[in-house]
């Protein structure tokens, strides 16, 4: 029975499940007394399910409702009449598709550049010792707690000086810089998990460092790289604050900025197309997160434990 209670993937090891199995098997007489607790647990679980799930369902249902229904006071989750024009209307707005394209360009190039730049450094952090490693770790941690608001003001000036403000390329470079602490943290965890003996064996056979990296480290790193790439993509796709400050031209807006501009003044908002656009903007991240679900804890912990 406890076999189904697999621990969070990649966190607990399989031996633990076996031990836990013994644990419950030893006291079967307690099972019946527990049923009251069980009922309570299910009640609590359904409260959580409702709290977490309702906003999503509401968004989905709103995207299929007619504008009359959206503007009336009703708590119906199932639309009285299914309307599909919200999606058509959302997509027909030129700027929505254009900003989806902008978001896609920025997110993909951020992912590629971030990985290319952080792989060598992650390797250095994981394998080389001494002050560099300590400094790198401190910087990675510090960057997690620094208020972006302090950096954004001078960053805006730096970008203006470099003529990179209000360009997608500039935004990409900034995203690269700001996701790198996280990708470095994840990647160095994955690299540290690769046994060093493998590399030393390669060196013994006369392969140089780059050869070792290319034919031993990178292939073993592929799963970790994929997970890190997906994370980078999602964080660039979802990002709002930096784009709000750095992009001014409407034709360069990313998707979150355009969606926010649809909100407009209260009362003028067309809720249906807005909901449809919000659903569309969420889909890429949701797909990636459902693939990543199992890696999620694994990667973060690999960084934490092996760091």
């Amino acid at each position, binding site marked *: 029975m*406890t076999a189904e*209670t697999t621990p*969070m993937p990649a966190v*607990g090891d399989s031996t*633990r499940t076996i*031990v836990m199995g013994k*644990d*419950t098997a030893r*006291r079967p007489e307690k099972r019946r007394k527990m049923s009251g607790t069980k009922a309570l*647990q299910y009640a*609590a*679980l359904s409260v*959580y*399910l409702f709290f*977490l799930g*309702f*906003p*999503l369902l509401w*968004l989905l249902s*709103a995207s299929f409702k007619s504008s009359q229904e959206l*503007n*009336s*006071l*009703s708590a119906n989750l199932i639309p009285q009449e299914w309307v599909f024009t919200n999606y058509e209307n959302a997509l027909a707005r030129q700027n929505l598709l254009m900003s989806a394209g902008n978001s896609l360009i920025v997110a993909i190039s951020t992912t590629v550049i971030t990985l290319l*730049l952080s792989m060598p*450094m992650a390797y250095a952090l994981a394998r080389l*010792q*001494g002050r560099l490693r300590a400094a*790198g770790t401190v910087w990675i941690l510090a960057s*997690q*707690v*620094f*208020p972006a*608001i*302090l*950096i*954004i*003001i*001078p960053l805006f000036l*730096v970008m203006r000086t470099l003529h990179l403000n209000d360009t997608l390329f500039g935004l990409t470079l900034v995203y690269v*810089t*700001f996701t*790198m602490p996280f990708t*470095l943290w994840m990647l160095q965890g994955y690299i540290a998990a690769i046994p060093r003996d493998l590399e030393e064996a390669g060196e013994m056979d006369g392969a140089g460092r780059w050869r070792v990296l290319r034919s031993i480290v990178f292939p073993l790193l592929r799963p970790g790289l994929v997970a890190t790439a997906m994370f980078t993509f999602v964080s660039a796709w979802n990002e*709002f604050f930096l784009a709000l400050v750095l992009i001014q031209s409407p034709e360069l807006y990313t*998707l*979150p900025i355009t*969606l*926010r501009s649809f*909100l407009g003044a209260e009362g003028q908002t067309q809720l249906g197309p807005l*909901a449809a656009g919000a659903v569309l*903007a*969420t889909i890429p*991240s*949701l797909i*990636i*997160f459902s693939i990543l*679900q199992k890696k999620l804890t694994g990667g*973060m912990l690999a960084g934490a*434990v092996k760091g």
Partner: protein
Amino acid sequence: MSTPTRVEPARKQKVRRIGPRARAERREAIVLVLPALLPIIIFSVVPLVSGVALGFTDATLARNADVSFIGFGNFIALLGDERFWASFGIGLIWAAAVALLTLVSAMGLALLLNSDLRLKGFTRVLALIPWAMPPVVIAIVWRMIYNPNSGPLNAALESVGIPGVNWLGDFRTALPAVIIVGVWAGMPQTTVLLLAGMQSIPPEQHEAAAVDGAGSIRRFWHVTLPALRSVIIAVTILDFIWQFNSFGLVYVLTEGGPGGRTMIPPLFTYLEAFRNREIGYASAMGDVLVIAIMVILSVYLVHQFRQAKEARR
């Protein structure tokens, strides 16, 4: 956390033994690190340093304007700026409330996910969705839910005879309403971290307690909670700092309104810098926020350090 310190001495000896190779390794390290270091320096270190420095100037957003150092002028002005300190207080309430409520609700969810219930896999996937959603979309969804004229919350209230509330527009309800959204958005991460912590508790400890006749509540209190202590403290401090720095959610939900009731400090600073164009003054605000965060962090680090010292004894 303690493993690296144990490994370190062995590695250092190795370096000393190979001597010249260490120097080659250092050169190699520079080559490996440089590509990543360049953008970090240009877009992160330089802005950071000049951001701190800007706080001591009267800079504005205008191009080619004369900028002069005015010493602590901005900070003295800030001391008497009631709107800033009101915003600072709101920021503390917002961050503390979100961090603590997230901790409590995530703890409950993690405990449920850690026991053998049906629907667990489904809940786990559902619980992660807020993490994947763009903050702007989260804010849009909750604006719909809170909408006084067409939101399901007021519809439900009015169907049982309670008059509706303008959740995000009313002075009393705006901040609590925004805090709930913060908890909704922050729960997934905290749950995952707590769950991972729970699963690293050796089951023998629970077994031993169970043999001694401890019920599930006492086992939670005497086994789970002490074992999770350091995770709980770290997660809560991090949550607090992240929330204190967060911007997008509240900006899209209320833009600081009504009447500044949800004007968290990053929002206040943003408006000062990019609407009033007073970037010198805004940077001084940023400096004050950094100091506040460093104070909180150092309290935590001193605590950690003391614990590590005790553990070594």
